[in-house]
């Protein structure tokens, strides 16, 4: 499955990437990270940390949200992707399963897979069905009728249809029952073992750290922590962040301003 020279190739790399939405929101600030060939790299971060923005920047879909890369660049095996339109990036082999599944609800499972790769050989389709047998069962069903977990599988399967070299997963376990999350995790591993590099964005830290070789933690658009997954998994900071045990005191009776009830 995996061509011999793959490891030799340079990987997906992000350098000093700064992204903002409109004039107002700076969502990413000089973020750098690497996805070495054949590895799983995970990006953790609270809501609004900028994970999805990072994914959008890599896949070239920022413009759909009024976002722009104001500095820094994204390269794949040395080639800059900054100016490439989304479809070109897909052609280079970087494919994303977006946050919130985003399956085409009015279409059948099969049609969704077609959109993923119109000219994909049967083998690819077969592989997807092997990974997600449930999709094979439901191939004629409208995607909107699938359960959340099934929709997530479809989203991943759809991405795989393009036979990606790098697979971008934005919160694949989002809103999934724990069991389902485990299944997804297993599949990600499997996909990776078949030679696809994975960039995994997760809020489910434990799961992500267990899967990944290397991890980054984004905080408000900046890389706060980075290191081998195992190490980060050990650090309390990460555990706290995600158990919501923070110690900053909220100043009650905030500021001096007060507001009285309105007797209109």
């Amino acid at each position, binding site marked *: 499955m995996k061509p011999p020279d793959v490891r030799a190739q340079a990987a997906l790399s992000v350098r000093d990437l700064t992204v903002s939405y409109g004039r107002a929101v700076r969502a990413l600030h000089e973020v750098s990270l690497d996805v070495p060939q054949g590895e799983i790299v995970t990006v953790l971060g609270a809501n609004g940390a900028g994970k999805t923005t990072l994914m959008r920047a890599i896949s070239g879909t920022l413009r*759909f949200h009024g976002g722009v890369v104001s500095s820094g660049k994204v390269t794949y095996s040395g080639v800059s992707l900054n100016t490439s339109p989304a479809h070109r990036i897909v052609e280079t082999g970087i*494919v994303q399963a977006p946050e919130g599944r985003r399956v085409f609800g009015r*279409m059948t499972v099969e049609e969704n897979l077609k*959109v*993923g790769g119109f000219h994909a050989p049967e083998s690819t389709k077969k592989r997807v069905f092997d990974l997600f047998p449930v999709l094979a069962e439901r191939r004629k069903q409208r995607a909107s009728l699938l359960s959340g977990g099934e929709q997530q599988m479809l989203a991943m399967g*759809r991405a795989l249809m*393009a036979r990606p070299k790098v697979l971008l997963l934005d919160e694949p376990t989002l809103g999934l029952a724990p069991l389902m999350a485990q299944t997804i995790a297993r599949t990600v591993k499997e996909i990776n073992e078949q030679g696809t590099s994975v960039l995994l964005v997760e809020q489910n830290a434990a799961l992500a750290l267990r899967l990944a070789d290397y991890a980054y933690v984004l905080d408000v658009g900046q890389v706060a922590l980075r290191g081998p997954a195992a190490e980060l998994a050990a650090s309390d900071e990460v555990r706290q962040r995600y158990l919501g045990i923070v110690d900053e005191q909220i100043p009650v009776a905030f500021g001096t301003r007060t507001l009285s009830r309105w007797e209109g």
Partner: protein
Amino acid sequence: MTRLLELLINGLSLGAVYALIALGFVVIFKATEVVNFAHASLLLLGGYVTAVLHDDFGFVGALATGIVVAAAVGALVEFVLLRRAKARRDVIAIATIGIDIVLTAELSRRLGTSVLALGDPWGDKVVQFGGITIAQTRVAALVVAAVLIALFLTAFKYTPWGISMRAVAEDSETAALMGIRLGRISMSAWCVAGALAAVAAVFIAAFPTPGLDRTTSLVALKAFPAAILGGLDSMTGALVGGLLIGLTESLVGGYQNDLTFLGRGLGDVAPYAVMIAILLIRPSGLFGTREVSRV
């Protein structure tokens, strides 16, 4: 009795042509959520090219050219207006009115006062059966429309183009993420619409109508209600709507002596009356889908 039958058949064949035009609206709307008011002028354009070229190129050659030209202009509109304008969708629709005004003015100027024949093979031939007479062009219109629409429904269901189109219509960002070229899709939609307009033009200008002239584009005004009452985002809707309007017009015309209490000459009103009635019951047309907006 034969009169009713004749009116029904005529209505259907007329409706088939409206359906072709309505289909043009639908294809564009599905791909870009814009209603193309310049469709009327694209229609006139296609017809005009066919009419002026048929002597030299022969009907088929001329029609082919007409189709290509109309498609090209459609693509141009997409490229110049749709890709660049940032405005609200209905404002862009108004802009297409502007395009329509300009294009129609130019074509009317070229057409001047002449009535052009399109040199179609059917001429004024008719087919007769059981006392019913119907122009061959009408039969041809029925067949062509049926074929084209069937073709489209299938293309939409099975071909990469059709599936991509639906994907874009449903969620353009994700479609792009899957490697679909949005620009190409919406442009292709405009091309297709232009081509359809050109084809429709032939049947509108051919016998029993004397030929193509500046008023030919006005039929588009009858295709609006067709597209709307069927549901702007539904191909089936376009078909049903077209036929419904065709029948309405034909019957209202044929039985106007029995409808005098409504005043004579209901030809233009009836289609809209039917449409409004239907909109009152189904605000997004018979087959249209109301999209739930999220907050």
